[in-house]
């Protein structure tokens, strides 16, 4: 236990050291939200648009910013003025960075909860002997020192740490069979950041199957006789009251459509400015290649093709997404039986959404990797995948800050320690990142292409990672089913 606190201390100090590092526009976004929530009445929160960084997170997050702004005024009152766009005084940086470090303690608490409640320690009291073999420490350091979180939260600037803390807390509660509490935490999480809708289907199916039906997940078949109305009403009550608490004031003020339009900006493109390495990254490339090919051989009228190709066929894709969601529900119903399978479903769900959802940010990969870390101690066969995903994802995350060599240094140890667990092909793939990075940061500028084709490095990285992620997804799907299928056949 003592060693565990040491890990926490070391990580927290490391975070302090990252204060002067690069900050993305998300830093200004959050400062602007501090200003909005501090200086405007609630009725104007979702209407304010002096800055382009409008409030587009759900109300709980706005309330968090409001609370933070109460402390912020002691640091620098100027940062709370809405007109001060892109204001970055030293005190502002200090305060915002500190707020991330401090809210991260929710994650630390959640990790501790998960580790003490959900892992059976095989060898007790041996965490003093070798740090690298104690499961407790492996897991907690994977989660707390998660390099991806570190880069996104403490360099790029976001508040993912405590959000994942809440997610982890909710998973812990489900593991403990305290389902209502789990649902409560997840509903709260959704009202902090709606990107967690990606994994909502897994929660929905799990709670329906394992909580609303009293069979406790042992039997393969669900019988309608075990359905409990009291339970579904209690569940509904908990979830709805959380949503009422958050959206209630806006419903009363008749602002719900405005809030929702801020939360779900469908006007934005299918792909984020930095292509997330998902299905559409591959699709876009094939699309482009096909267009070029057709142009070359005159198979297509020039008027038909053109630059709009990338966004062509939007409608079909949208339908595709919906179809995929439905299909997920179906598969989950099939494999969901206990908490462990729930975790797998959660990950599959995250994967599916990441691959196919609308306007995915590359940072969303964390929704896959962090629950994945929980599987590390599970079984030898499965461990290689989390490591693999992990390495890939780190690379993806650093796409948008790939200029800073800091990220590279931080990544190397992780990738190094993970190589022995991967197969030859996977190792080759991971090593392939090295020449790719060399091309992106050295050869590409030297060739003078960075002026003419500035997007090429991003595109290459994105496509390269998309292949890796796709591979992980399929492999994980297969593994999950292989494990579940024989049982259901027997039954």
């Amino acid at each position, binding site marked *: 236990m003592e060693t565990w606190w040491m890990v926490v*201390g*070391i990580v927290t100090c*490391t975070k302090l050291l990252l204060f002067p590092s690069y900050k993305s526009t998300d830093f200004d976004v959050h400062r602007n939200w501090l200003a909005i929530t501090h200086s405007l009445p609630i009725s104007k929160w979702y209407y304010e648009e002096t800055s382009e960084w409008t409030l587009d997170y759900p109300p709980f997050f706005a309330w968090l910013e409001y609370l933070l702004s109460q402390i912020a005024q002691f640091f620098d009152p100027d940062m709370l003025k809405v007109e001060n766009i892109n204001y970055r005084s030293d005190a502002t940086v200090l305060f915002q960075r500190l707020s991330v470090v401090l809210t991260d303690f929710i994650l630390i608490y959640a990790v501790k909860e998960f580790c003490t409640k959900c892992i059976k320690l095989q060898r007790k009291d041996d965490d003093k002997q070798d740090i690298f073999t104690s499961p407790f420490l492996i897991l907690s350091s994977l989660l707390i020192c998660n390099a991806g979180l570190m880069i996104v939260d403490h360099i790029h600037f976001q508040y993912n740490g405590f959000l994942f803390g809440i997610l982890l807390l909710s998973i812990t509660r489900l593991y403990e069979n305290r389902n209502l509490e789990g649902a409560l935490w997840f509903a709260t999480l959704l009202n902090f950041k709606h990107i967690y809708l990606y994994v909502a289907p897994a929660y929905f199916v799990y709670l329906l199957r394992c909580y609303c039906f009293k069979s406790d997940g042992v039997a393969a078949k669900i019988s309608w006789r075990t359905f409990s109305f009291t339970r579904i009403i209690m569940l509904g009550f908990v979830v709805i009251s959380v949503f009422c608490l958050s959206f209630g004031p806006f419903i009363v003020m008749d602002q719900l459509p405005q809030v929702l339009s801020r939360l779900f900006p469908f006007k934005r493109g299918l792909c984020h400015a930095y292509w997330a390495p998902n299905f559409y990254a591959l699709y876009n490339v094939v699309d482009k290649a096909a267009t070029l090919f057709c142009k070359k051989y005159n198979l297509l009228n020039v008027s038909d093709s053109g630059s709009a190709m990338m966004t062509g066929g939007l409608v079909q894709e949208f339908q595709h997404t919906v179809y995929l969601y439905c299909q997920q529900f179906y598969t989950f119903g099939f494999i969901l039986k206990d908490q462990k399978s729930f975790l797998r479903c959660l990950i599959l769900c995250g994967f599916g959404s990441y691959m196919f959802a609308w306007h995915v940010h590359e940072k969303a990969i964390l929704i896959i990797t962090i629950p994945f870390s929980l599987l590390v101690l599970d079984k030898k066969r499965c461990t290689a995948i989390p490591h693999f995903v992990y390495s890939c994802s780190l690379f993806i995350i650093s796409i948008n800050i790939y200029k800073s060599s800091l990220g590279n240094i931080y990544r190397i*140890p992780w990738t190094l320690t993970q190589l022995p667990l991967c197969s030859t092909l996977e190792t080759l793939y991971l090593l392939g990142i090295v020449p790719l990075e060399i091309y992106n940061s050295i050869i590409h500028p030297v060739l003078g292409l960075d002026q003419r084709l500035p997007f090429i490095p991003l595109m290459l990285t994105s496509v390269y990672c998309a292949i890796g992620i796709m591979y992980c997804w399929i492999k994980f799907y297969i593994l999950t089913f292989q494990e579940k299928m024989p049982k259901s056949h027997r039954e």
Partner: protein
Amino acid sequence: MNIIVYVALVSLYAIFVRWCISLNTYSGAGKKPMFGDYEAQRHWMEISYNLPVHTWYTNSSVNNLLYWGLDYPPLTAYHSWICGFLSHKINPEWVKLNTSRGYESYEHKLFMRYTVLFADVVLFFPVIFLIFKQMKIGETQMIKAAMLTLMYPGLILIDHGHFQYNCISLGLILFGVLFLSQGRDILGSIAFCLALNYKQMELYHALPFFCFLLGICFRSQNQNGFFRLIKIGLAVIATFVLCWLPFLSSVESAIQVLHRLFPFARGLYEDKVANFWCTLSLVIKLKNILTTEHIILLCLVSTLVMLLPSSLDLLIRPSIQRFKLALINSSLVFFLFSFQVHEKSILIPAIVVCLQINKEPFWCVWFGILSTFSMLPLLIKDGLTTAFIGSTLLYLILSLSLYDLVQYTGWRKSLQKLMFLVSLLGMAVLTIGSLTVKPPVHLPDLFPVLVSAYSCVHFVLFLVYFHYRQFTLENDKQDEVVLKKKVS
């Protein structure tokens, strides 16, 4: 796990922390007209790259010595020349004669930071691992000790934050220690001479090196010892001649360089230093009573007198462990009593204190934290406050997790704990005070003075303790082996 993996992990983490700290501002960033040490180093690159060697140290129309004139020995100048050459290759603007003064840009900062990181990784990292490996304390102990030494916050903050190249001179000194403990006295003395020719402040270590080598030579029974002495002397002279070759054309030019290296015209100490004289000035203002010559004499005499016990002890009973302790004692005495001391000079004793980490973790960690704290006013001025707090806490937590700091038993244990906690508490109070409390108008330097006096008291305590250690030391086996090898 494989030892190489550990070494790689420790090194990568050390590099990571250094890189984080180098993201901060350097000394004198944007502060016209003189800027700070960063500009000094850049200016030396400019001078050494553009002017012929023999004019580097002389005042002229193109080399105004009042504006950061070169005042380090020739090796620093050669190093500056190499860096200046590289700068010129990358962007000639960086080292253009006279017009590049105060040049600042993102790329240039990156380049300068890389030069320090390069020197650190190439010279300092290997010697740390080698020196602990040489102690034969087992792999785990070696990694622990190396990790903690590499994470010593004072050196990181000054080199990668404030901007200096201390890692080079300190690395060379450690190479000297390493070679001597392997029984290669010629290589050791060459390494020491190189260190001395990189930074004259390494004179702090000169006496123990001299006494140790002389003591060994006395110990060799027959004619052998005399030969050894001659060989070592020749090696030293040869190294010096090689380093000073361009300046030996005439007596004046050599004297001019020496004059630049030892500027007695400057004051007793710079800013507020945690040494004896500065603390004494709280009670007695020496400057008002004595002339500069008298003060210099006083410093010289007191330093020499304080140096005698540990040096004579080493001369009579030379052994590696005693040598290492004498290095600490001698450099601490210099820091506390000599003339013209900078607050950064505390790194020179600190790095040899770090070598004791596996024997006396408590004292080393205490010294490490306190020596970093003693530079607090400087660090605050450079905008390194968060870096200071972060790295010092990191050092403390790392040491707590790697070592059992409690050394003693019974009442001594409680005393030790009490002292450490009170000391830490005092540092915390003074740090918070200097950051938040505005000093009264008639005492603008209140906190720097408090910090230096507080540190000085500690340093005197450390000095007493390490003297006590040196005099109660018993020769251990490893020392005997090395010495026998030398005698035979």
